[in-house]
């Protein structure tokens, strides 16, 4: 199987080289955010206030890890359902986010915004939280510590495996994949 490597942060060229169905390994810094953090970030964008993280070129990972045991970098850390972030994602893309990692279906508005702002939606394997935690080499909370597992964490990842679901060309692996194997 052909596997591409991508290094965060991403530029337009990186995004445009990816097609739905590609398997990728992600290296570099990614930031975590779930529903509660998205709500806060988008409220700041709307009010014109500065954000606690730079969004330009960034990859956002939808995850709420389990607490790390002493000596561990992070606990179990697989993706959560992306659809809950749909309401916020177009605005995040408009403000520079280049990719998000989660699992599950996205809205038509998100799929269109990925094309408009040259972004890409990746899925990691849902429920492989133990395996994915081993790809995370560093973890620190950088914003909203009061949100606990939902705080924004800065992660350094190495060879973090993901699959391109929605590319910047409007392709969708979820519909194409099922069509290929339906009988």
């Amino acid at each position, binding site marked *: *199987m052909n596997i591409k490597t991508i290094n965060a942060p991403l530029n337009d060229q990186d995004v445009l080289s990816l097609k739905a*169905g590609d*398997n990728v390994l992600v290296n570099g810094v990614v930031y975590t955010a779930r529903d509660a953090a998205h709500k806060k970030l988008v409220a700041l964008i709307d009010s014109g206030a500065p954000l606690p993280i730079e969004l330009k070129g960034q990859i956002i990972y939808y*995850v*709420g*890890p*389990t*607490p*790390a*045991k002493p000596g*561990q970098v992070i*606990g*179990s*850390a*697989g993706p*959560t*359902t992306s*659809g809950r972030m749909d309401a916020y994602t177009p605005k995040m893309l408009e403000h520079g986010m280049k990719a998000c990692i989660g*699992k*599950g*279906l996205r809205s038509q508005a998100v799929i269109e915004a990925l094309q408009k702002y040259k972004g890409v939606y990746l*899925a990691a*394997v*849902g*429920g*492989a*939280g*133990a*395996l994915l*935690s*081993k790809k995370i080499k560093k973890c620190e909370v950088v914003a909203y510590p009061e949100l*606990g*597992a939902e705080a924004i964490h800065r992660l350094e990842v190495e060879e973090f*495996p993901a*699959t391109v679901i929605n590319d910047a060309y409007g392709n969708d*692996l*979820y519909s*194409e*994949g*099922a*069509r*290929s*194997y*339906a*009988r």
Partner: protein
Amino acid sequence: MRELSVSVITDTVAGMCEEANIYLGDDVSTALKQSLEVEESPTGKEVLKQLIDNLEIAKNEQIPICQDTGFAVFFVEIGQDVHLTGGTLEEAINAGVKKGYTDGYLRKSIVKDPLYDRKNTGDNTPAVIYTDLVPGDKVKIAFAPKGGGSENMSAVKMLKPADGEEGLIDFVVNHVKAAGPNPCPPIVVGVGIGGTFDKVAVNSKKALFRPVGQPNPDQKYAGLEKKILDKINDLGVGPQGFGGRVFALAVHIETYPSHIASMAAAVNINCHACRHLEKTI
């Protein structure tokens, strides 16, 4: 009358919370390994391999299989000849959940008020607890940490008796198809048929506590489970929804007698981390 201190229940529950979240049962891990032989899609195979590796890593590193360590759901059978001492069953179970989720570094995923402030209770309580009184002097505790992603993809429908087998199959298959990749396939599909609106939902949950792949004892329903499973897998959704042969590992049906006017049906979906554990005290 046998006397049983509820502290024994608390300790048992605490241990079960940690065990169920770190070690997946042999039933599910065997089903995952078997599905690797059936899967045709290269990406689907890769997903299944990651899931099998994930189980080993969780075991070796002593960390949860999945970061969503769930809502703590219990079905408890209490022998009528047991006298619980030292507190209530509910308090004892919740104390066990608090201990297990705290000591085990499990994620606390429960908020107290569902609508307004949604503040985390901080210890994963309260649990969801169903009790049955049964003959004997034992207490049987069945526990499942139920993930939110798959739980969100569940439904109840009050079908008409005239809808028959075909209507039931359409409801289940179309519902699972719409859920697609969201509940982390390969999934286990719990189906309740019959009873009231509430009873059918509980039965669809209870179906997820059955060892994966163990058929309904009634041949007719065992046949229906197989028929629905084949239809679901023919959708081509595959592991994680990336396309492939294995969308579901099993369909489990639990039934209850029905009112003459009704045919209630419920679908409760579980992800591949179909965690469930049973202990008898």
